[in-house]
């Protein structure tokens, strides 16, 4: 469905910097420049969808036409700790080791 006139979305280097920060990516100046151009093209391509009239269309929560998939609350075997830790870059046989984390998790 090629759109007649999709407005050209323009991403700024600042937008890309922010996304990179959220993704914990360190970009060089050249990378930032290239990605700004490339991401603008991708977003521009996808934004053709904006031309479709979706007023009467229900938002799709999931592409599969399935609902209510459950499992019963029954324990299954966990991994042995050695297996769980096996592919970690660093571990001490009990825990995963990561660079010092101070302060509170941003979680839950």
């Amino acid at each position, binding site marked *: 469905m090629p759109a007649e006139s999709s407005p050209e979305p323009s991403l700024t280097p600042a937008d890309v910097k922010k996304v990179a920060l959220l993704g914990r990516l360190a970009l060089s100046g050249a990378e930032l420049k290239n990605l700004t151009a490339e991401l603008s093209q991708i977003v521009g391509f996808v934004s053709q969808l904006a031309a479709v009239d979706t007023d009467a269309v229900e938002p799709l929560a999931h592409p599969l036409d399935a609902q209510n998939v459950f499992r019963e*609350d029954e324990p299954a*075997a*966990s991994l042995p700790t050695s297996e769980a830790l096996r592919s970690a870059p660093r571990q001490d046989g009990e*825990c995963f080791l*990561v660079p010092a984390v101070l302060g509170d*998790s941003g*979680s*839950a």
Partner: protein
Amino acid sequence: MTAASPPFTTVIGLEVHVQLQTKTKLFCGCVTTFGSPPNTQVCPTCLGLPGSLPVMNRCAFELALRAALALNCKIAAFTKWDRKNYFYPDLPKGYQISQFDLPFSYDGHLEVSDPKGAFEPRRVGIIRVHLEEDAGKSMHDEAAGTADSRIDLNRTGTPLCEIVTQPDIRSPQEARAWLNELKLLLVYLGVSDCNMQEGSLRVDANVNLHIPQDDGRIAKTPIVEIKNMNSFRSVERALAYEAERQWGEWQATAAELGSMPKQTRGWDDAAGITRGQRHKEESSDYRYFPEPDLVPVTVTDDQVAAIRASMGEPPAVLRQTLESRWEISAYDADVLVNQGKELVGYFEELATLVGEGKAASNWMQQDVLRCLNERGGAIADFPVRPTAVADIIGRIKQGDFDTSRGREIFAEVLETGKPVADVVAGMGIAAVDDSELKALCAELISANPKIVADVQGGKEQAAGGLIGQAKKKNPNVNPGKVRAMVLELIRSMS
């Protein structure tokens, strides 16, 4: 209120996370046992390994529904899950499966009141209740001076209900009372054990002040979110501290809501203060999007009705039931219900055996609860069972001995574990028969002409002096019977 009202209103909203009482995690079959060695309850799904897929735990969803219904929430007919994206070492997938725009329940309320009237009854609105997974635990030993943090993912994927209230709470004391009521409710319904020490219940609080101005406008101070509160008492203290701090800040800067981004402050329990936490400017951008690995869930009215029917009486209803069924005071019913379901069961068994609630309630409040608190432990393990207490109350009612003697017997049964009958026999307590009582009273009357004269002169209460003497001569006499007998004998003299 006794103290002068402060020149502001404290406005508080709470965000509570409770761990649901399931055997296994939300999306995999790993167990949720607390305190196991690190990384022994993990599998490819909860480690976020490539190729693994989450499948929703039916029990977790039903417990969450139960919590929402108990909080008078509306249940969404259609609900879905979303990814909340952020990086943290205790979150192996790089996102938390949570609910964003279509939580399974919303728009409820839970009331709290104080039986002694310390504050007006308060209905606290619930904005939403949703179901999400927990993160893992990171441990950093600063004393050891190591550069590493250690990550334990046993808790990752544990089912949590997040409960968000409206900013309807108006004092730190109310906040604490409301949390107590919430905890009681969730424990009664078997939704969660709400054990704060084990992290099964966590509270964050949002607080600011509304300050009336001379021109009639209400000035609002910037909202502060308080974290790291490890008990309900800490919540109360942190909120009281924060209200005072904001009042001082307002007087110094007059800064209002909207003049700065929302601040997060951590509660330092030992120091008794809140401290500003470093603001992560990107932290609010979670880029939610629908979780493609989970299909939506629909809930029918029939399902809701079935869960509602299986819930049992929530504490607020149970208080009224006890009050009317056993004709006890609202205060007594409150004390009993607040001790939990098992204690209420004990009381009702006792009241049934005794045949009335008043005496049973008095013995619960004055003897059973006091001794239970002194000993510690659960009512299920309390050595004096309702049958024994009922036996003692029955013997008092039939005049074998008085209440204070009954208390001694209760204490002895508690200490020795012997049956009531054996303790009564062993203590040499035998019912004093009428002729024995009559002889004793006659003896006292002849020895106390002054009291006799007083009674004859119309002062019946003077007979009380003889009851004490009678008890000294024979500890087993029933004071009521002594009184009646003494009055009868004196009357027959004139």
